[in-house]
């Protein structure tokens, strides 16, 4: 009874807050793309400045590259923290995985998934996608492996040390490009001018493709580490 009362009261309060918020938000003026604001500037001169066809990538890895650096640092810290919280000495012992047919089918499909991941990473400045999305696709391959082939398969192929190596390699690529920006262009994370090529080709847009590759490896390896540390305990009861 008491609980029901509490529920009703909270619901009433939440409805009231929702109503007030709705009143406020309905006063928002219609968004007109801010004729004098940032977006107008980016749409006009984003292609000239960065050489990247995809303006979102231009924002993420060139104009606001520092934010992306901070974001990948957040993932780095989260991985470090999760490993710290869940560190167990237990070595993973595998389940047997799914049936033979599924294993075969996935064996044929995996290269294509990986190809798609690499495509998304490397074409970040030309088509939708980029380092983060492609990196997560690469991590998903690792997750699928653990489901289909049993959890030890991926572990044996790419040990946590290898993944950590990939992760820090990506992070160091990013940082190195930032420092190269200081040396060559005079500002941290400035786009490297000498790498610019004809717009629309694969290797264009200055340092953006390289940053994308670094971020992709970093995010992929980091998220795979998170997943593997989280499933480590289930290994013992599989057997």
């Amino acid at each position: 009874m008491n609980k029901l009362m509490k529920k009703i009261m909270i619901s009433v309060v939440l409805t009231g807050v929702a109503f007030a918020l709705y009143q406020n938000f309905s006063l928002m003026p219609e968004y007109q793309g801010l004729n004098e604001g940032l977006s107008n500037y980016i749409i006009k001169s984003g292609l000239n400045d960065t050489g990247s066809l995809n303006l979102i990538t231009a924002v993420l890895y060139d104009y606001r590259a520092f934010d992306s650096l901070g974001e990948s640092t957040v993932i780095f810290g989260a991985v470090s923290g999760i490993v710290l919280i869940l560190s167990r000495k237990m070595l993973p012992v595998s389940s047997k995985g799914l049936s033979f047919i599924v294993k075969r089918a996935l064996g044929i499909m995996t290269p294509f998934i990986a190809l798609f991941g690499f495509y998304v990473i490397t074409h970040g400045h030309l088509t939708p996608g980029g380092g983060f999305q492609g990196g997560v696709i690469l991590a998903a391959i690792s997750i699928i492996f653990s489901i289909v082939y049993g959890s030890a398969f991926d572990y044996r192929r790419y040990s946590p040390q290898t993944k950590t190596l990939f992760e820090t390699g990506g992070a160091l690529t990013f940082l190195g490009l930032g420092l190269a920006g200081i040396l060559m262009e005079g500002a941290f994370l400035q786009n490297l001018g000498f790498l610019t090529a004809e717009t629309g080709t694969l290797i264009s847009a200055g340092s953006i493709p390289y940053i994308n590759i670094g971020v992709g490896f970093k995010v992929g390896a980091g998220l795979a580490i998170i997943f593997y540390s989280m499933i480590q305990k289930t290994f013992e009861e599989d057997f």
Partner: protein
Amino acid sequence: MAVLEIILVIFLVFSALMAVYFDEELISIIFLSIFSLVLTALYLLHKAADVALAEAVIGAGLNTAIFMSAISQIRHGDSD
């Protein structure tokens, strides 16, 4: 276009409601994953391709895997 958007939005709210309503965690997580998929479609309708890709990959893919691995360990502890 508008009809499609309305249908998708109704689906969105419905899956969110179901995700909150059910007490079983597994069903909630499946509805959360559906929620992410519908959200992906809505992002595409709103012409935000990059965000749609990210939501599909992270929201529907990775988050579901992580939630599943979490409840697979929590089940075990419930018995005692």
